[in-house]
């Protein structure tokens, strides 16, 4: 083997595959998390739809959609305020970004309270996991599990957003971290838009 060949072998990097997903590793991890969470929510919606379709005389207990409409409006608006926080963070306007993050967190708190109000209304009507006044016992379990899973995401997400805002204010987090959280918040907003039609709108009392 020639000296030139040995020299090349010692210094050249091993051939590597081109990187198809060029993005920061934290962002890639968040996308993967969202994809896995899509599967979980899709399984919940599919299971709910399966039970609803397979059960004759499925109850239609929702007389008023006002509470759900307000919740949806708040969720959509908080998606917009989160984007405003991201735009401000990218423009390095820290006070404005924090303000919009706190607006978003307030939206999350109000949504959670309205959701709990919705649940209390159902409980007052006698809907539990194994019983309801309208017949098919599966209704309560299906309703509470799918809406509860969404509520868990939004309430925990709200707490996480407050932590992100505090750490961003303190300088431990950057605009990139705000962008990561924006991905999660938009995702849970989108999930709510998928839950409302099968759970509420298809069960309006007629």
């Amino acid at each position, binding site marked *: 083997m020639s000296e030139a060949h040995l020299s090349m072998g010692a210094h050249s990097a091993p051939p590597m595959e081109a990187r*198809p*997903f*060029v*993005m920061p590793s934290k962002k890639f991890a968040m*996308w993967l998390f969202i*994809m896995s969470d*899509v*599967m979980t929510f*899709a*399984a919940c919606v*599919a299971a709910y*739809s*399966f*039970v609803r*379709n*397979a*059960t*004759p005389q499925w109850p239609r207990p929702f007389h008023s*959609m006002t509470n759900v*409409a307000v919740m*949806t*409006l708040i969720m*959509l*608006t908080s*998606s*917009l305020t989160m*984007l*405003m926080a991201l*735009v401000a963070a*990218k*423009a390095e306007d820290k006070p404005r970004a924090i303000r919009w993050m706190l607006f978003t967190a307030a939206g999350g708190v109000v949504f959670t309270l309205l959701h709990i109000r919705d649940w209390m209304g159902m409980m007052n009507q006698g809907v539990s996991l194994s019983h309801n006044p309208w017949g098919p016992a599966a209704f309560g379990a299906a309703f509470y599990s799918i809406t509860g899973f969404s509520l868990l995401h939004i309430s925990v997400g709200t707490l996480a957003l407050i932590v992100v805002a505090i750490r961003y204010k303190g300088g431990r987090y950057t605009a990139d971290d705000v962008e990561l959280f*924006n*991905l999660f918040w*938009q*995702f849970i*907003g*989108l999930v709510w*838009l*998928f839950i*409302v*039609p*099968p759970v*509420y*709108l*298809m069960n*309006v009392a*007629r």
Partner: protein
Amino acid sequence: MTTAEGMKKYLAVYVALLIITAVQFVIGYQNIEGSQLIVRFLTFAVIETILVIFFFMNLGSETPGFIKFFIYFMVFVLATMNYIWTDSFRLLVFRLTGYMPT
């Protein structure tokens, strides 16, 4: 794109989402047959998903390789979830007619 242009785009998508959701609520109160209701809601949900993923989550700014990976993977998973429907109809029909296989 400037910050103002970005915000205009986000506001336009937000208004579009509000309108689509409002239409969904109106449809929910109509006396429409179940399967038709599902088709309409699913169509609107798909439009909302495209708007949120490409504008609010900025998927469009990622590499073409990642966009393809995300879309193919998600479409496959969500499509295969629909494998359950035949069995739910089986349960419904058997229960209504009282027919049981021997």
